[in-house]
């Protein structure tokens, strides 16, 4: 069981973070996802792949967490120290740290502006690495819809990130 969880946890965490945004809510969603998986494991019937099944649980849990968060009044502008103050550049790794945090914030912000349908499809494809059929199963929509949502979501993300990024920061996304 532990091996099974360890194998899938990083990707499920990434999906939760990308659906919800980098925050403690995503961490909570991950924990809830794993608990749901072990509690319902004896009902996994092999009709979908195990990966698809776990992603479905993660996606639904993350969405539920996101909806709960939207109902809560915001307490702070920054809700997680990981995404908050950036440490002073005191070592060679610092620039990379700052760049990474900035990239994460930019992508989280861009993803947050996408319609939920598009965000889920893009996250499951590009972060979860599921194929179209698996995403269709997770989201319970036809494959054609998945294909369309991914394309439109990517196009919007490229546009948003391209407009926001400085020329030297993310040149590959600029047209």
């Amino acid at each position: 069981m532990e091996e099974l969880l360890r194998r899938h946890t990083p990707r499920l965490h990434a999906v939760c973070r990308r659906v919800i945004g980098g925050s403690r809510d995503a961490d909570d969603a991950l924990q809830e996802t794993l608990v749901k998986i072990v509690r319902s494991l004896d009902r996994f019937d092999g009709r979908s792949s195990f990966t698809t099944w776990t992603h479905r649980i993660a996606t639904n849990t993350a969405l539920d967490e996101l909806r709960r968060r939207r109902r809560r009044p915001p307490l702070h502008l920054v809700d997680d120290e990981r995404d908050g103050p950036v440490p002073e550049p005191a070592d060679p790794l610092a620039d990379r740290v700052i760049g990474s945090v900035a990239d994460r914030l930019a992508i989280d912000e861009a993803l947050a502006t996408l319609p939920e349908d598009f965000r889920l499809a893009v996250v499951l494809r590009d972060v979860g690495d599921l194929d179209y059929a698996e995403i269709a199963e997770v989201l319970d929509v036809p494959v054609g819809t998945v294909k369309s949502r991914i394309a439109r979501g990517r196009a919007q993300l490229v546009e948003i990130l391209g407009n926001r990024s400085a020329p030297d920061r993310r040149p590959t996304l600029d047209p």
Partner: protein
Amino acid sequence: MNTDRSHDASAYLDGASTPAERAAVEADPVTLGEVERFRALRDELRRTDEPVDTADAAVAGVQERAIVAALAAFDDLHPRRAAAAEQMPEQTPEPTVERRAGSVVPIPSRRGLPSWLGAAAAVVLVLAAGALLVSRGSGQDQDEASTEPATLAVTDDAGADGAESRSAEAATATEEAAPMVAAEDAPESADPGEDATSGGATAEGDIAPGTEAPAAIEAPETAAAAVELVGSTALAAYAEETVTAWRTAGTWPPPPDDRCVDAATAPTDAIALGEVAYAVSEAEALRPALLLTDGSTSEVRALDPSDCRVLDEAELDLAAP
């Protein structure tokens, strides 16, 4: 933003284009540029989730805590298994484990089992379904009520009892699992917004009780072809994950399925892992395939269920149960 161009570029990046579409993309520099922008976006999405610094030690800590919490929940659900695991070090294999390993009965032998066993399994199924309906009617906590029979089935069943175990498992599916099944079977909606929100809402367990039981007990054939696999690597990965999940849940081996075991190409101790849609390569069309593994789960074979012809096979890398 050109929508058609975005669609073509996106499908191209994901390898979901037809040969004609691929050729069209490669002939159009503007669309190729769009492909590269999408590729950069994908790389960016993946890269920013990789641990890069000490701040990401917190990510590892979060994941570790989540795993620990999940394992604690697992032990709560399976106290007998947890107790057995504590006794495992420096001992010969635990009796329960031995009994389960010994329960992998060659399919020809299963066919020789007395006919009353099938009738007994049917009776158990009917009783379990009846008990489920009664318990739903009385408003009991389904989650608590359902996990206990599943645990008993795991530790007490042997060999041909697999059918009983799986039947009880299906009949005692809880609110948490049933919505997932129900969601799979829901009709496709034309409204994208409705599609996504319905997926999330069903995970809350808000499905009316009357809708759960039929979905959970539904015959597996209806959705068997939902899994699409291409190539022997995917075949092996799917088989390994399925076997591991079933073993972990204590529902291994699955119910007997003696299709194709008469074929000379199937192992005599074959165990069916279910049906999928399979293609040997991207160039071939998906077709129904019955997956069989041998008793020692060292390999998996994909067979055409109509004529038991071997379509493909792959070696498995599974630890002993």
